[in-house]
């Protein structure tokens, strides 16, 4: 069962890469996320699984589809068909190397089992509090980035001649 889920995950990721239509890529990515979430559930990582489904398969897919829709009117870029031939070769080579390396490492990793106590809430809020500060920081960064990039205004290019040394007649400062 575990193997089936893993193969499903990899298969849908490959489909997302090779698919020539952007929307199909985004949907394949979402399905791959669902497989990943199922894998997480089976490994007792319930919270991570829920997060994966709701955020990656949900929010990120919505972001992708919004971006695809916003950039659709101009002509799309389709990939060349040769990827359908090159990729299987590449993947086969990768899989072979992977198998050989894993075989070599079999049994060489020492077992070091730790113990863990507490509930998930305790671990998240008590032990990883600094992570939460970081998450707040990165969310600020993302929100401010989107605000900055979508502000209405003129563009500032590097080489526009501004003779006279004064900063510009180019814009309207209503300040």
């Amino acid at each position, binding site marked *: 069962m575990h193997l089936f889920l893993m193969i499903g995950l990899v298969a849908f990721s490959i489909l997302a890469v090779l698919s020539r239509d952007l929307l199909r890529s985004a949907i394949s990515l979402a399905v791959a996320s669902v497989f990943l979430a199922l894998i997480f559930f089976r490994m007792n990582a319930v919270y991570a699984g829920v997060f994966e489904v709701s955020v990656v398969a949900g929010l990120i897919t919505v972001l992708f589809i919004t971006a695809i829709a916003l950039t659709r009117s101009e002509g799309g870029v389709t990939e060349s068909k040769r990827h359908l031939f090159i990729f299987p070769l590449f993947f086969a080579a990768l899989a072979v190397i992977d198998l050989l390396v894993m075989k070599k490492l079999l049994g060489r990793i020492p077992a070091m089992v730790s113990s863990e106590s507490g509930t998930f809430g305790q671990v998240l809020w008590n032990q990883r509090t600094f992570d939460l500060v970081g998450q707040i920081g990165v969310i600020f*960064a993302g929100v401010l980035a989107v605000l900055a990039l979508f502000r209405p205004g003129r563009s500032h290019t590097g080489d526009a001649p501004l003779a*006279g040394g004064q900063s510009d007649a180019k814009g309207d400062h209503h300040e």
Partner: protein
Amino acid sequence: MIFLFIIVPLLLASLLPLLGKISKRFLPDLLASATMLFLLVLSVLWAKPLIASGGVIQQAFWFGAPLNIRLLLDGFSLFMLFTISLISFAVTLYSINYMEHYGAKANYYALLLVMIAGMNGLVLCSDLFNIYLFLEVAAVASYALVAFGQGPDELEASFKYLMLSAVASAFILLSIAIIFGLTGGVSFGTVAQGLTTLNIKYVVGFCSALFLAGFGLKAAIVPFHSWLPDAHPSAPAPISAMLSGVLIKVSGVYAMMRVFLNVFGMTPALTTVLTVLGVVSIFVGALAALGQNDIKRMLAYSSISQIGYVVLGFGIGTPLGIIGGLFHLFNHALFKSLLFLNAGAVEQSTGTRSLDKMGGLAKRMPLTAATSAVGSLAIAGIPPLNGFWSKLLIIIALVQAKMYVLAVLAVLGSVVTLWYYLVLQHQAFFGKLNENWQAVREAPFWMSAATVLLALLCIVTGLVFPFVIHSWLQPAADVLGKGITVAMNFIGF
């Protein structure tokens, strides 16, 4: 409280978009500059005595209730905090005038503050995963700042930077995941102890290689340097100064050295790789800078070259080499920011970045020309300015470690550096005044103030370098010299 270094910028960043609606210019300028000054004073006066007896682990408090955040402050962290605060203060002063014609100043200051909070968090953490997390905070803020002008050049540069940087972060995280699988923990102490009892060299070597690739890309070491010559010139000048002067050092060199020296332990293989990559970076950067016409692109390639010196110094591994590397890191932050800020002043006054079109600007912009001359001489290694001493230390360390070939190459690199900076100075500032620039004026007050401050620091650091080494660099070098024992002290943490 050490936690202030992270929480104050974040708080102000959250308030600025609201404040920006009330007062578009004055209040954001004032608050941002005051915050940077506060952080700078904090790092010098208050935090420095804390580490007098070695590293400190401090628990953070939030209105009296203890939070479970323990921050690590030792010589190396404090040294980086000081560098970050100093450069950000100068950059904030400069931005008061420069960012006028970009608009949305409150948003800009907010992003800058988030980036600084991320960098401060990175140097204060004691956990591998937190290094990755705060690295990403600073990186996301920097993607937006590079693209801030919304012009096609900037957007393209930011996109390429984002792609490469995201791959680097993924490599770093993959390495952290593998180490987590091998040792069962991610904090420095657990990992250091786990790795000493392990016996699989290849997997640990693979993790080191992933870290080298990831942090190396953030630090723009050859062969991972290709994003820097595109990203740094297109960004607004104060952001170029922040990126070249601080970000590549904090997220690249600091993180790499912290992980390699205090957690993994330096091995001969690492020494060889770092010294070789350092020397290659010196030459690739210097030779590419020679042929450049765009002033900021030349400075960007020069950054690659000088970071090569820093990595070379660290790679040697001896105490003198580490001190040389740290000193050059600080000096490069000073003079590269100075040079980028000056390039921005020139670009704003003349409207162009290409050296062919400039000429004789010293007659119209004397202050900018003077500070730029100080910066160029410092970076080229002319005594008694600061660059000379740091390069000398690195070269002496190379000779002491019997790496004579590398020492000769380092000296050659310095000669090439001198050459292209002389070209830059001559083409931009000296020579005959181009008729187009007859009506050009000197840079506005705050921009000049920032560059004069940095130039004075270059001169002063060069003159009193023994004091600088003893009081700031030695504690940092000691921390790095102690190796894994630093991390081992944090077990059970």
